[in-house]
């Protein structure tokens, strides 16, 4: 395995696609810093930590594509048979691939965070003056959980790259990554749909107990605030057990994990309530084990001619 890893990393540093990915991660981080700096210049409340987890969604595209390009060369040039001929076991080949891809994920993460925090913290700050923005106490556990998510994405990437030998596998990886992001976003929106919605005839301005004018709901001539307005079942709510099944799928899939980490810390649509970072990491490790187990089982039997 040491020899396999040594060969992998020797090839990695000479891989143009690896360096293209690194530059892309740095560029994305730089654009985030520029965006945050523009907001800060206008006095808007902003924290560079709000962008700290954006990289996970980018890795969801970058890692499968990189794995497909890098590992497919083994099939294309017949190197995979050489590895087995010199005595390497299939399990060792597969696991060395996983370690390589996960390492690339960590390197890309380091590049992204290095640029983002290195340039962003001095220029924009961590939002200490804005208590409503995420601080280190909130972001640090999620960054730790993202390490497990990177491993899960790596496991998914290696599974695809090792099972599909055709040279079009990079396109398949890209298409799959985009489809998974789309599916995660759609699942998120579906999970956000409430089980009940306010039942009212019209929206009217009303006075609350403190004398302020607030949004009110009028039903059968009676005015209610949002809290005490009668409700009715939401026809768009999917109901159980579908809702629970979708929530599990969203938490178990690397795309769902990445999307929840990403959307919870940036302004925009509020994500469905994600599980705590530790639980999300547990799901990620579970997916890694399942995907790797499946990949090993199939790869052991795969015809490599």
């Amino acid at each position, binding site marked *: 395995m040491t020899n396999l890893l040594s060969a992998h990393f020797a090839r990695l540093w000479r891989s143009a696609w690896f360096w293209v990915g690194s530059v892309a991660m740095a560029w994305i981080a730089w654009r985030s810093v520029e965006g945050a700096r523009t907001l800060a210049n206008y*006095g808007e409340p902003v924290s560079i930590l709000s962008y700290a987890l954006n990289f996970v969604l980018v890795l969801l595209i970058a890692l499968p594509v990189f794995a497909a*390009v890098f590992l497919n060369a083994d099939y294309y040039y017949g190197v995979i048979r050489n590895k087995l001929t010199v005595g390497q076991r299939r399990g060792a080949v597969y696991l060395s691939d996983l370690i390589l891809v996960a390492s690339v994920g960590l390197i890309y993460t380091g590049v992204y965070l290095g640029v983002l925090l290195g340039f962003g913290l001095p220029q924009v700050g961590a939002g200490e003056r804005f208590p409503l923005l995420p601080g280190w106490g909130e972001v640090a556990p999620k960054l730790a959980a993202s390490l497990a998510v990177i491993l899960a994405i790596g496991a998914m990437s290696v599974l695809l790259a090792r099972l599909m030998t055709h*040279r079009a596998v990079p396109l398949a990886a890209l298409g799959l990554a985009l489809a998974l992001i789309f599916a995660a976003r759609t699942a998120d929106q579906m999970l956000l749909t409430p089980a009940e919605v306010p039942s009212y005839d019209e929206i009217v301005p009303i006075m609350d107990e403190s004398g302020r004018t607030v949004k009110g709901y009028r039903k059968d001539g009676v005015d209610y605030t949002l809290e005490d307005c009668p409700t009715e079942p939401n026809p768009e709510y999917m109901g159980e057990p579908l809702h629970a099944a979708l929530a599990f799928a969203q938490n178990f899939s690397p795309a769902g994990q990445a999307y929840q980490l990403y959307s919870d810390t940036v302004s925009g649509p509020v994500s469905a309530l994600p599980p705590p970072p530790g639980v999300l990491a547990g799901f990620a490790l579970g997916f890694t084990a399942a995907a790797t187990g499946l990949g090993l089982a199939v790869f052991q039997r795969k015809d490599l001619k």
Partner: protein
Amino acid sequence: MAVINLLSANFFSMIRSKRFWLGTFIMAAGGVYMVLDINRMKDMAEFDGLLDSGVFQYAILLFLILPALGSLFINTDYNDGTIRNKLTVGRTRTQVYLSNLITVYAAGVFYTLVYEAVYLLVGFPVLGSLRHPQAALSKLLMMLLLFLALSALFTLLATLITNRSVLLICVFMAFGLILGAQIINAKLEAPEMIEDYGGVTYITTEDGNMTVQYMDKNGNPIDPEDIPRVPNPRYVAEPMRTVLRKVNDIQPGGQLAELLEDGHLEPDGFKTATPYWQLALYAAGLAAAVTAGGLIFFRRKDLK
């Protein structure tokens, strides 16, 4: 006659390709999805010309699928060695190049027709008829020219780059053209003068409404009418403004943005559209120039 034989072989190969039918399925599914999505949104907001709003939403998808399919198709010739067979039996390099271009473009036209057929067939009963059919037709013709230019560009790349990396290069370049167009449009939208204030805060008025309070550079409240205006450092002045606008009018990603958004925003906040005849000229010109360049380079290329 020779080109017809090549085209016949190419079309036969394309029709038997699973990836081609996968692309067809994606376009058809996109048509159905668009109808369902518009139907869902019409309940949430006032919508005019419902069926019209989704007629060209396929274009971004096709902008990415066509380079992928085209580069894969052409790269297969190199991978399997069939390109040398074609030349050995007497086909000229020009014939091979042009037949590949026509095949890739034909796939793009086919995908367009699949999307439109599915979208309109499913959409008519659900969303009603087209409000502006003539406008839709002229935009469709413009789209077809745009995809001719795109096909020419990626035929050039796929023919000159024999490595299997060309598949990814073409797709990423397509992404880059779209992204580049968005970046250029955003730069050109920046106003010439901007308000120079220190920050904003939100206050609650006596009647309970939330309002924005502007602060000057010293942190003192200031009325919006009294905020000083200064030159915008991000404003793109001439001649770079004209250069960037022309780049976006010529490159396929910029043309796509122009067609999908019915123009581009100017610094004064008003939308302006580049005339279709200009876009058509640029698309046709780009297709011709790229094809001519491709033919020249392909004739000299070592195919061993």
